[in-house]
């Protein structure tokens, strides 16, 4: 589904490209090596907040220039253009700064979920604000009680007149401490099987009753957060989709989450071969910094890594095109997850190898190599973030290839009766 394709008159690609090109040249600041993106070089809190503001300003700049939300409907502040126009944008934005932090999860999955399931009023209230850089969104999805079993959410919303009272605990929101709104999956019925008692809400993050705690990761970063939600009241008008039908929304939500890197509902600058964008030293630079580039084994590793980056990119493009053209089922997004996970861990191993002993102990002179070691501590992130690779392997084998489903002990019984630990 592409909400942008329902327009009547569409500007042709070449005129769009030349208009965009001259606008970018005049208005957009060029790429700056100091901005390695949100997950780049560790920033102080102050620097990070400044960088978030830079992202908001860039988004506003795009909005004012008429280039925000290329594929988003005009009535909600978008440009009402096609995927092909977004692709042109992806190509032309190369070499310029762009609001990298606002792409995931704000545009996708949050804005895409609102566009698919929100009411006209809800879209009016939030989509233009998102396109102006005024609202940065997060996903209140995972909970400490269960990572992959998202539908097993314990966070509960109880109806009280025109409002809902929410209590619970969410986790793995990256950047919630500087974000504005969240999509929240909550349980609204404990007396039906787990998938049939969920509802999705929109929730302001910074309000009384929500405590945001930052989590320190193994690499020292503190981007992930955990939220404690206590008696937070939400108007019923901020409910997305029907009561207890949250899994219909949730299924699409997770599809969007898994397929952001093949989507045209956000910006992905073209021509960046490097896995995970252009941050940090290239494999070649890394081998050179560690003084090992003349070693044939190292040269082979550099080539292996580069091949994997090209392959991963080609696969993302193929599967993305396959899904959006209907040639592939949406479950093929699970393939992208599996490939991203295996590519990222292999690249992590290669970098670790290329960096030599300085990745274990380093001085200020070679902290670039030290950073490789620090990142190697969280090598598995690529297999965990956004749903584990094991879950995607289930999706691929069961949904895409039609193999029999795993037996679950939580089907067809009231959620309150589902075992949540060993029998005491």
């Amino acid at each position, binding site marked *: 589904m592409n909400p942008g394709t329902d327009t009547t008159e569409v500007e042709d690609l070449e005129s769009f490209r030349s208009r965009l090109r001259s606008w970018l040249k005049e208005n957009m600041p060029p790429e700056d090596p100091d901005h390695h993106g949100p997950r780049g070089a560790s920033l102080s809190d102050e620097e990070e907040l400044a960088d978030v503001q830079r992202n908001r300003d860039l988004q506003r700049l795009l909005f004012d220039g008429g280039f925000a939300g290329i594929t988003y409907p005009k009535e909600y502040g978008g440009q009402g253009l096609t995927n092909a126009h977004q692709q042109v944008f992806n190509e032309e934005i190369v070499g310029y700064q762009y609001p990298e932090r606002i792409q995931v999860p704000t545009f996708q999955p949050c804005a895409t979920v609102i566009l698919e399931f929100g009411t006209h009023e809800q879209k009016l209230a939030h989509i233009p604000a998102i396109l102006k850089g005024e609202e940065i969104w997060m996903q209140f999805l995972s909970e400490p009680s269960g990572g992959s079993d998202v539908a097993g959410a314990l966070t509960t919303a109880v109806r009280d007149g025109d409002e809902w009272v929410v209590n619970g605990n969410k986790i793995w929101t990256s950047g919630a401490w500087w974000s504005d709104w969240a999509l929240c999956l909550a349980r609204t019925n404990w007396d039906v099987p787990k998938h049939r008692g969920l509802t999705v809400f929109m929730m302001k993050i910074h309000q009384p009753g929500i405590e945001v705690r930052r989590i320190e990761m193994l690499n020292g970063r503190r981007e992930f957060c955990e939220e404690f939600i206590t008696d937070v009241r939400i108007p019923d008008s901020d409910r997305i989709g029907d009561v207890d039908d949250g899994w219909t929304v949730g299924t699409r939500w997770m599809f969007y989450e898994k397929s952001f890197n093949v989507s045209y509902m956000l910006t992905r600058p073209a021509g960046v071969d490097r896995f995970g964008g252009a941050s940090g030293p*290239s494999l*070649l630079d890394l081998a050179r910094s560690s003084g090992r580039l003349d070693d*044939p084994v190292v*040269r*082979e*590793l*550099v*080539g*292996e890594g*580069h*091949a*994997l980056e*090209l*392959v*991963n990119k*080609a*696969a993302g*493009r*193929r*599967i993305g*095109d*396959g899904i959006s*053209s209907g*040639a*592939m089922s949406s479950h*093929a997004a*699970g*393939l992208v997850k*599996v*490939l991203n996970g*295996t590519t990222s861990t292999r690249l992590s191993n290669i970098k670790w190898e290329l960096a030599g002993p300085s990745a274990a102990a380093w001085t200020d002179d070679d902290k670039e190599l030290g950073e490789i070691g620090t990142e190697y501590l969280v090598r598995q992130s690529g297999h965990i973030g956004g749903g584990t690779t*094991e879950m*995607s*392997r*289930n*999706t*691929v*084998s*069961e949904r*895409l*290839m039609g*193999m*029999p489903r*795993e037996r679950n002990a939580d089907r067809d019984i009231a959620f309150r009766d589902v075992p949540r630990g060993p029998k005491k």
Partner: protein
Amino acid sequence: MELRLTSDQELFAESTRKFMEDKCSVTDLRALRDDPDGFVPDVWRQGAELGWTSLLVSEEDGGGSFSGAPVKDAALLAYEFGRQAAAGPFLPANLVGAALSRWGTDEQKAEVLSGLLDGSVVASWAWAEPRPHDRLGEVALTATPADGGYRLSGAKSPVEAGGQSSHLLVTARTPGGLTNFLVPRDSSGVSVTPMKGLDLTRRWARIDFDGVTVPASAVVGEVDGAEPNVEELLQLALVLQSAEVTGAMSRCLEITVEWAFNRYTFGRPLASYQALKHRFADMRSWLEAGEAIADEAADRVQEQSPRAGEYVSAAKAFLGVYGPELAHDCVQMHGGIGTTYELDLHLYLRRVILGNRLYGTVSEHRQRLTNILEQRETTHA
């Protein structure tokens, strides 16, 4: 294979598939196991009528593609060859056809091209060399100027369909560089030693050149200037090889998925075990990624992109690892029967692992990628 084909490509793939199922069935392939040529000449000629030998030859020279994108069409055909593990000198005929059409003289075209196109003649590119010169791109065979022509000395191996070819396109070292020569196989001083090989129907030969004299008119392209031509032929070979390997991979997986649904153990299908399902998911991801990079490499070669060499090596570096991984994992999923000659799976396993060895090893293409990255740095600097 491409997700979206033009209707002409669709028709071509479909007619080829039907023809192969009919004329290159598993029974036919098994019957060719001990055949010295490894293919039935009449079937090859019929294949040529379907377009198997003409795709990379220009229309002026009597060839032609279906979609206007000859490299893409040829890759599509290679994919079908892999899916059927089909017999026939597909790669040699198409590479020499491309070379003569691009750089051959009218005389050379008249001598070889029409026979290549109608399938009555086979010709092969003699590029790789035997030990100790068997590293990617090494050429030690010399062509020394003599009596207005050249004298060729050295050896080539493995030459696909070398024993079945009437002509060889020989890449030789001349005083100032590399030069390609079109050499009749029955020239005096050429000796052919048939080799044993992994594939049921592909035939290989070592060819020795013992002071073989050829006239100056045997030169294909420029004297001392064949290096870019060799790179072009290597790129074409890798595009076809990658497409063929992905075709064979897809067939391996297809056979094995079917097996997993039908084979019951402990009262349930293999496909119901999570330990196996996860491996199927991985295999499916390798196949999809392999097809993606094979298609992209074909695109880059088709459009003569400056990055074509990089993409074909990336395809090789990936498929050379994950092709054999997938094929052997398919054997594992079958258990004991998977290691027998009786099960058809090995027909495709052979095609997949063959692709891993020829036109450069995985290790060589990884290092080539690093060389390419370095060169790009210096040209940009």
